[in-house]
């Protein structure tokens, strides 16, 4: 007995941790290397605060869109425990629908006259298209496989993703479509020195262009060139996420969703219509992706709509969802912002070319999975998944 009672505390986790530790060493070494590169870049003066702020703001805007898409992954994962691989294509649907709507408005002149209404209608059409695709996906591809082994719905999802991509390609053509330029001028009385042009010899100032404009700003003595749209996208996305959070927490449907995520069969016994909850989840995910898609194409410079455009944002949003802890709603929001910033700040901080942005996201994904497979916020799920 005396020998045993000494063994109450384990020797560093025992052999069970053996696989993990060398990995941790490699991961840590890699992280330290990254920190070293970053620090030396800063020390050498190759990286300035100005760049950082500029990248940060851009990254937050981009990241908030990732968050919106990531929420779609997380919601579906939380309930069905499957990755909706085709979610990126749901995003594309929104972008196309938004594009065609906005293009029509731009052609008819409606855009120039009622810019705000046109934008809102564009959001509406993008959201509706995405929701339709998401719901169709659920009905056609996923519902028949509700109880299949894990690999099966995943492969189906990959198939659905390819199918949709190719359908867009055949339907709408391979060429990238340029989103119309939008200018929305506000507050001509406040910003009396912006967007001025001379018409018939008289100088007219239209006010701040909060969508197409880019303006020099000086903060704490650092000269930046900022786009108001970055802030609009960021806060718009935050608002949408807040609305979603309220929906999940406060409404009856939201409660049903949480119950189904916890335990499908029990929820069914308690009288919850599981199918309807799942469809609702896809509707929500689709709506978020559609809104995200319109936000994405509205940012000048992003404004290309093409059949494959959803793939990478989709994968990255998934990465974001994993970083935050998949199945976890605040986690997805955080993960998206984190990834957006890392991707935007990372390349110049590490002194690598901008084309390697994607490598940074995947590198992050691998690092997170090594150190914290459940993501930053994802303790709850680890037991349930097994």
């Amino acid at each position, binding site marked *: 007995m005396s020998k045993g009672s000494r063994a109450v505390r384990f020797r560093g986790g025992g052999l069970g941790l053996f*696989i*993990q530790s060398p*990995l941790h060493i*490699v*991961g840590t070494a890699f992280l330290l290397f990254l920190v070293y590169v970053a620090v030396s870049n800063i020390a050498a003066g190759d990286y300035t605060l100005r760049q950082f702020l500029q990248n940060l703001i851009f990254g937050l805007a981009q990241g908030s869109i990732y968050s919106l898409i990531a929420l779609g992954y997380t919601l579906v994962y939380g309930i069905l425990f*499957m*990755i909706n*691989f085709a979610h990126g294509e749901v995003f594309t649907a929104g972008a196309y629908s938004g594009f*065609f709507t906005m293009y029509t408005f731009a052609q008819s002149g409606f855009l120039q006259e009622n810019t705000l209404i046109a934008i809102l209608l564009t959001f509406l059409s993008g959201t509706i298209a995405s929701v339709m695709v998401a719901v169709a996906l659920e009905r*056609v*591809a996923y519902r*028949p*496989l509700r109880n*299949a082994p*894990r*690999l*099966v*719905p*995943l*492969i*189906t999802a*990959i*198939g*659905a*993703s*390819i*199918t*949709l*991509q*190719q*359908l867009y390609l*055949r*339907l*709408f*053509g391979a*060429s990238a479509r340029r989103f119309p330029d939008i200018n929305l001028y506000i507050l001509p009385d406040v910003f009396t020195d912006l967007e001025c042009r001379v018409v018939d010899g008289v100088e007219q100032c239209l006010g701040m262009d909060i969508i197409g404009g880019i303006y020099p700003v000086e903060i704490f003595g650092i000269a930046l060139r900022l786009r108001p749209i970055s802030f609009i996208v960021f806060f718009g996305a935050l608002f949408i996420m807040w609305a979603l959070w309220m929906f999940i927490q406060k409404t009856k449907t939201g409660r049903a969703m949480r119950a189904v995520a916890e335990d499908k069969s029990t929820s069914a016994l308690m009288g919850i219509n599981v199918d309807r909850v799942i469809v609702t989840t896809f509707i929500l995910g689709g709506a978020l992706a559609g809104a995200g898609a319109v936000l994405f194409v509205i940012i000048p410079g992003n404004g290309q709509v093409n059949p494959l455009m959803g793939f990478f944002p989709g*994968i990255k949003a*998934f*990465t974001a969802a*994993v970083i935050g802890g998949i199945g976890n709603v605040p986690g997805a929001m955080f993960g998206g912002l984190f990834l957006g910033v890392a991707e935007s700040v990372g390349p110049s901080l590490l002194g690598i*070319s901008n*084309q*390697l942005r*994607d*490598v940074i*996201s*995947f590198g992050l*994904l*691998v690092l997170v*999975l*090594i150190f914290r*497979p459940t993501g930053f916020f994802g303790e709850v799920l680890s037991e349930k*998944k*097994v």
Partner: protein
Amino acid sequence: MIHRTTIPYSLYACIPIVILTLTGIFATFGGRDVIRGELNLSTLTLAAMVGITAYLVGVQARERGLALTVLNAALSGLIIALVLSALVLFEAQNDLRFVFQNIGRSAGGNLSGSVLTAGRPINAETGDYRGLLEMAAFCVTWAGFISTTLFLPRRLREVIFVAAMLTLTISLSQGQVNNIITLPDALALTLVLVLGYVAAVWAEANTGLSATAKAGIGAGLGLAVAVGIWLIAGAGGLERGGVLYGQGTQPVILSMVEDSRIVGFFIAMILAGALGAVLSRSSGQAHDAFWYLLAGLLALGIINSQRRADNVWIAVIGVFSVLALALYFVPLLGKRAQTAFERTPPKFQRNAQWFATGTAMAILFLAPQFMGLYVSNVFNQIALYAVMGIGLNVMIGYTGLLDLGYVASFAIGAYTLGVLTTPSLVTCGGSLPETAADVATQCTGIMTFWEAWPICVLFSGLTGTLLGIPVLRLRGDYLAIVTLGFGEITNRVILSNDFRDLLGGAQGIAGIPSPVIDLGMFNSAWTTTLSRSNDMYYLFLFSVIITMFVVYQLANSRTGRAWRAIKADEDVAQAMGINLMNNKLLAFGVSSAFAGLGGAVFGASVQGIFPRSFTLLVSINVLSLIIIGGMGSIPGVILGAFILIGLPELLRELDAYRLLTFGALLVVVMIVKPEGLLPPKPPELSEAGEAARRSSNMTKEAA
């Protein structure tokens, strides 16, 4: 009267049909003839759409009798026709070309003018809508007709369907396949095989001859036919217009009697006769396989002989009848042969199997001499994907690890070969030259293909294993995404300018030397460069055989069982003493090694590699053929490679819809038949187990 499902089903069917119409499928396919001048692909596509719908509707209404079934099916055809007409008319009023860029272009509306208006553009001004009416009439009649087939016996229906599909496929790819074999060749082979077969069956019933003696009779008959052909050829039968020449091109096999290959011809005929005799009592699979092959050759022979004929229907009907007869009768005879096979002593069974395998190998070995460059290139593609499919199957099918970054290992194999065998500014066998211009003249590669090949395999295997380490603990979906990331990272790296000197950046590595078989030490003439596709064929064949062998052996061993246990239930497998880390890493390594093997052969065969050959699409292609063929099944993967890689190669014009079909197939297969077309057969170990037990008891008693 009208079944309650008829209208909803037809309307559901209209959704994909309308979507496909908007992709311009009818316009794209309109220019491609399936049967020259009689049937184009566009019509066939519409027929397939209507046919499938009518079939599904008909199945529901079937219990109510023939008349009502036809009525329901015809109604579904009518609904589709109405929806399509509405679409055509709507499009004629509103130009949708801006949105749907591929929709087509035609007078009187972009959708008008294709099969949707039966080739007669509608004309709103003159009120000419006859085209739409014709299309509707076609849909209704065709739908009704299809539903009548529901009342045929099931087997007959299947035979007709499969034979029709194969006939159409052969007809569609006529241009590529009509030079493989001539009708006299095929008929001569058929004659010999049938003679041998019939003689053996007759001997079985009427004499007590041993199996070997029967094979001897078959061989003798083969010899007799060969002599006959030789005599006829001597009398001028092989000249143009002669009995043995037929209407097609010059016979490939028969003309062997006229030159130095005559010995080969006689041997081939004797072997064919013996094969015929052996087949009458061989395992059902071997029996069926050879007869189907023969039927295929006959079909190709017919195509060859009719390739310039005025009446295209002769060829079509000929091919269809040959295939249908084969599909109907061969399995019946196969059952008979299997029964006979099981009665024969084990020694003969073994010999028969060896003989069949040997003949199959000989056919595979000689095939490229007849196939021509294009077809052997198609075979090479199939073989390449078969190698990769069997390799990836180790991960997906056996171990249950979904790897979407398989292209990474493929690329590593190809680039390793490129770097090692191709001279560049960095890698140069000899002194490094000053300028890039001198590389070509002053450098050789570091090593030859044969030296580099194993290194490529090992290196891919090693990197695969290393990539496996960080993702060991991840389950299905995480693993899929992370491996996808690896694939993308690999693609970025080979594209990037940072490694341009070594990997060539966007330009890739051009001028990879072809493998040289140098047996100059025995005979100075024995040196060949494997540069043409029908030479590379042997390298591909060798790769497939190695891959099949290694994976088969591993799958049926302690390791393979561990893999499948991991796939079934990882936790329990570990609790049964299986070391997850070792076995999973081994799966990663083996799988990647075969991708590397394939990559190296690929690099050598195309003599130049470019980053755009190494995209996610490769991984998706391999994944699809595994899923459709059958996870964990080697024959399944090979079938998958034939269907998914071979067919599209022959039907190049359909490339636009290739990936769309793959994606849709993945979804459909997973929902309808998740085990794939040829699921793996569980090994039957009882008998072996009994034998093992007997022998161990014997040893014990002896001791």
